[in-house]
């Protein structure tokens, strides 16, 4: 187990190094990063000044060395627009994004797992049809469109929720979510909900035929006990990895959702940074998002290893 964890950590570090490499050289794709950052009618003198200021006139390997050196201590340079260290801006926006993604995941879990369980345990029933429909719809409705429709229906027509923005409820310095999170979180979580329904359903269908379930039945256990203690418990092991992967997806998806709802998180910051051609900030966000995803994958794999004795005692 220790060897497994260690090798996964080394692997993750290598991936992050690769990410730094990609993020740095992507800006060089067009040959001249400065021309990306200035407006179209900038004078050559202005471009030269920026080149000087950002250090783009130095040899590329030295720039890369500097970039890596800075990245290792969390320094991705200054945001051109905000005149503030890029990492600082990201960390300021982090709580809003975490609130949104966590709520989305919670909604997906609360809807997806029970629906998948109901559907897998009664194939062909009304619940099964409903769940499979939900799974398919969840995968085919673009979240950016769903968000627009939800705003029209629930905010404009019915007036139940605010059309945009994040409001929090301050309790002893803690920022607690209010109903402003519901529409964005639901739109963001729909795809994940669909995935969870499909996944739970097929896991239940598979596990139902296992020998230990038959044994449980022959012992005279009730359906409820069997589903909760034997089937769901065994289905939950692979579920861990799905949840880990999906959280990364939720972070990416927040680009649209946060833009639409003017939610003050990292996705919104990224869309803004791209609009302002603030590439130091874009680089920092791309790295930060990768860091989160890679870390989550690592933790997921470790959790998976701990939960599954076959992996735990594997080596």
């Amino acid at each position, binding site marked *: 187990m220790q060897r497994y964890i260690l090798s996964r950590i080394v692997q993750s570090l290598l991936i992050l190094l690769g990410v730094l490499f990609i993020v740095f050289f992507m800006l060089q*794709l067009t040959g001249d990063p400065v021309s990306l950052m200035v407006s179209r009618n900038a004078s050559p003198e202005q471009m030269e000044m920026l080149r000087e200021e950002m250090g783009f006139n130095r040899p590329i390997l030295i720039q890369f060395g500097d970039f890596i050196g800075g990245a290792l201590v969390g320094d991705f340079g200054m945001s051109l627009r905000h005149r503030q260290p890029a990492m600082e801006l990201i960390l300021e926006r982090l709580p809003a994004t975490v609130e949104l993604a966590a709520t989305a995941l919670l909604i997906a879990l609360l809807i997806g797992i029970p629906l998948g369980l109901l559907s897998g345990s009664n194939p062909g029933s009304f619940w099964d049809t409903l769940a499979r429909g939900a799974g398919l719809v969840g*995968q085919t409705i*673009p979240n950016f469109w769903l968000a627009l429709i939800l*705003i*029209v229906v629930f905010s*404009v027509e019915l007036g139940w929720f605010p059309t945009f923005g994040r409001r929090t409820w301050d309790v002893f310095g803690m920022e607690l979510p209010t109903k402003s999170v519901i529409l964005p979180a639901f739109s963001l979580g729909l795809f994940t909900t669909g995935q969870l329904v499909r996944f739970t359903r097929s896991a239940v269908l598979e596990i139902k035929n296992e020998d230990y379930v038959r044994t449980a039945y022959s012992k005279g256990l009730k359906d409820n006990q069997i589903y909760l203690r034997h089937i769901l418990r065994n289905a939950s092991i692979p579920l861990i990895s799905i949840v880990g992967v999906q959280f990364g997806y939720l972070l990416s998806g927040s680009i649209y959702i946060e833009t639409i709802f003017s939610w003050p998180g990292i996705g919104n910051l990224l*869309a803004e940074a*791209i609009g302002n051609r603030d590439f130091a900030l874009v680089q920092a966000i791309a790295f930060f998002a*990768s860091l989160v995803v890679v870390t989550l994958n690592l933790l997921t794999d470790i959790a998976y290893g701990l939960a599954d004795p076959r992996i735990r005692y594997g080596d």
Partner: protein
Amino acid sequence: MADTADIKETGLLVDQAAETGFRSRLIYVGRLLWRDKTGLVGLIMFLIVVISAVFAPVLAPYDPLRQDLRAAKQPPAWSEEGDISHPLGTDNLGRDILSRIIYGSRVSLTVGFFGVLIACSLGLLIGLIAGYLGGRVDNVIMGLVNLILALPYLVFVVFIAAILGQGLIIVILIFGFTDIPIFVRITRGEVLRIRESGFVEAALSIGSTRKRIIFNHILPNLIGPLITIATFEMSAMIFYEAGLGFLGLSVPPSVPSWGNMLATGRKYLTIYPWIATFPGLAIVFTGLGMNLLGDWLRDVLDPRLRRMKK
């Protein structure tokens, strides 16, 4: 969905098809489709989109770029102020929404088709190399593949699109190249599986060359899984293209595309909601059709799944 007896029969049909010629195979595929209605529905939905893309100039009632400010912001025909001359209404500049949706399918399908073509052909080549050569080459290739698959996809696609700028070819290249790893992984996995199977061993034992094994034994077995994945990936690309368009990072704003229409619709969302509604429905329609088709293809083309179901 078909019940077990049906599926059993479906499986037998497919096996028979494998033994007969191309024309009778087509007939069998037709019968298979008829048997499983969801696949048929998916295919019909997909064909509707393809036909509207190909025959857009004939089908669209208006020029998608023609502005008519007097008829601007007209709601769809069935609402009170609507008019049958613009069935789905008009946008902020008085352009006909139905015509723009019909033309928009061209952008979506072009991106999806050529994106998948690039990703699939390069992915197939690289996957074959990795799976067949193995060893250090395989390690390097799979290392890169895992690196790319570990990235938050959308963030990087947006990043690249922001650097390279707008344009149809740029979007196709972005999706074509970033999607290669998926096809590499599928191809490599299948090659490893097939390489160990009895029939390849048998071919080797009678002295078949490497080239012959790849072309006569491995490639034909790859077609099924690749077509299935290609369908899902194409639908995903259509989705992502619309998303990029929504952020203003896909084709130039003057081109009628579903993503661009959504971006316009968002600005007028609270007053003229139909501008954003219909292009979104077009995306859902296409995605639903392709997913149904993909699910059906997976069931029919995957021999292992067929055996399991039998």
